[in-house]
């Protein structure tokens, strides 16, 4: 188990480094000179050259990469070009919006998906299965921003249960902050739940056909007993794989959803930084997002080891 985790950790670090190189190079080939953007098209060439020196843009590319990644490792991400404040200061409060939003969406997606997937599998071919999977099929096709608008119309404007946009902050207590995240989290999580639910259904159906389910029934377990204690734990392995893959969709989704709900999160910061050609901020944020996706996949690998003893415990 230790060597399993060690190997995964090494690959986690390497993958993150490769991702950072790719992101960095992409930013370099993007058209547009940050100094020109900051000073305007008609700026004095000397002023531009001075700003180049100040930003370190006159140095060779590999020096600039090492400088940036060196700071990245110790948590010094550099200065935002547009806000002229350390990027770290921009991140702090925004992570407190995006991280809870992502976790809440993930939780909604997993809980809903397992509920509908297991229900549909247990009632395979019956009316309940058809209805639930029909709804899930529609859910797969619905884009999250459209669902977000529907939610705003219904739950914010018509019923006034939740705020239509903005974030109340965590200062007024957990519920205060959570309250403004519930609609965005459902808008983000439900389309993912639809996909994950379909995966869960087919995984559970597959395990229900296994011999060990018959063994469990022969032991005296009821149909639902065998379903929950024998079929579902086996079916979770493919489901967890998809959860890991969906996490990157989730982060991409936060960029859209945070804009729809006007939430001051990482996604919105990325969006603004791109619009303003704040390249240092963009490359830092994208690398951080990539690192979090890689970390989640590392955690998924750990969960595998826990779910499937064949991976974590060798044979004799």
């Amino acid at each position, binding site marked *: 188990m230790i060597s399993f985790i060690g190997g995964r950790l090494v690959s986690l670090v390497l993958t993150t480094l490769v991702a950072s190189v790719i992101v960095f190079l992409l930013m370099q080939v993007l058209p547009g000179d940050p100094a020109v953007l900051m000073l305007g098209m008609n700026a004095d060439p000397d002023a531009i050259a001075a700003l180049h020196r100040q930003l370190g843009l006159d140095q060779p590319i590999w020096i600039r990469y090492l400088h940036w990644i060196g700071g990245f490792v110790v948590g010094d991400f550099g200065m935002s070009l547009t806000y002229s404040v350390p990027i770290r200061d921009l991140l702090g409060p925004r992570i407190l919006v995006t991280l809870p939003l992502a976790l809440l969406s993930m939780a909604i997606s997993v809980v809903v998906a397992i509920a509908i997937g297991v229900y549909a599998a247990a009632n395979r071919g019956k009316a309940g299965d058809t209805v639930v999977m029909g709804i899930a099929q529609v859910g797969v096709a619905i884009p999250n921003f459209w669902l977000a608008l529907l939610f705003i119309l219904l739950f914010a404007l018509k019923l006034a249960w939740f705020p239509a946009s903005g974030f109340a902050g965590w200062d007024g207590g957990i519920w205060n902050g959570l309250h403004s995240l519930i609609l965005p989290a459902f808008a983000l999580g439900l389309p993912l739940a639809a996909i994950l639910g379909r995966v869960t259904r087919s995984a559970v159906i597959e395990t229900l056909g296994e011999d*060990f389910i*018959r063994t469990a029934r022969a032991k*005296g377990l009821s149909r639902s007993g065998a379903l929950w204690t024998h079929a579902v*734990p086996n079916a979770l392995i493919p489901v967890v794989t998809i959860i890991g893959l969906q996490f990157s969709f989730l982060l991409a989704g936060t960029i859209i959803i945070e804009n729809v709900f006007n939430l001051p999160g990482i996604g919105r910061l990325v969006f603004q930084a791109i619009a303003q050609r704040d390249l240092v901020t963009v490359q830092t944020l994208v690398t951080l997002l990539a690192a979090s996706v890689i970390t989640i996949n590392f955690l998924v690998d750990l969960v595998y080891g826990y779910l499937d003893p064949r991976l974590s415990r060798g044979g004799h």
Partner: protein
Amino acid sequence: MTKPLLRMTGMSVELTAGTSQVDIVCDIDLELKRGERLGIVGESGSGKSMTALAVMGLLPQRMRVRGELSFDGRNLAGLSEADYCDYRGRRMAMIFQEPMTALNPVKSIGAQIAEGRRLHLGETRADAEKRARALLDRVGLPAPRFDLDLYPHQLSGGQRQRVMIAMAIACEPDLLIADEPTTALDVTVQAQILDLLDELVEDTGTALMLITHDLGVVSEMTDRIAVMYAGRIIETGRTDDVFARMAHPYARGLFAASPHGAALAPRQAGEGRPRLNAIPGIVPDPFGRPPHCSFAERCAYVQPDCRRAIPALDLINTDENVEHRAACFHPRERMVAP
């Protein structure tokens, strides 16, 4: 005579496929007393496994039992699903053919053995696991080499089958059904598993229903046998009597086609081992069974009247109060084995 533990009278298993229905298993009359050992023999597709699953109430969804099927005086067909669950694993238990897939890969063997006792006897986890430890010792998997927290993939096929057996006997059932328990195992391991089963049945006094296509296994393990063909019992009686006489040509064919049977057959001086005689043709598929003796197409002794009706399971002989019956219009007379 004591009351039978298991009784099937005119029991059939009906399969519904689309709009048509067909009997996978037809008109089975069988009884099994406490402590008795019954062998059910037949080719693949003869309905022997379905008969066992019918007893366990674990038939696939589109199949249904018709006729009488009672266990310890209670009609199993009328049992609610919840009551049936109380029987399964507690009063009747089953050992399956494939030890590689019949155990849950993500649960420890200790948890899988303890599960039945916690479910049926309401034991705590600690008590049930203590008992599981004793059961593992009993089936020849001693500590510390075979800990309760091992997982199935860490065991060999034979060891997994021992775990299956430990699971099956965990609640000391009255009836143990073993469906081809050794078919998937190496020959050397087969004998060990059979010895273990033999010993456990002897010690616990459970009734055994042993399903196999291996005539060698039934001849050593059982008191009585029923030979099945195309969903029907075609010969039944004391194991010794059936082996001595083999009144039904199919039983004879099965015997001649088995290495065990060929080994028992008297060898002529100067001749090598006789070739195994394969039975020509195939078992008719359940949807195309003829309205007459279903073995007629493959039978070497077929007569015109064989194609007129389905032969009844007629009495041939009675030995030690056990009837020897065969479903053949022209039962063979000559003894087979010396």
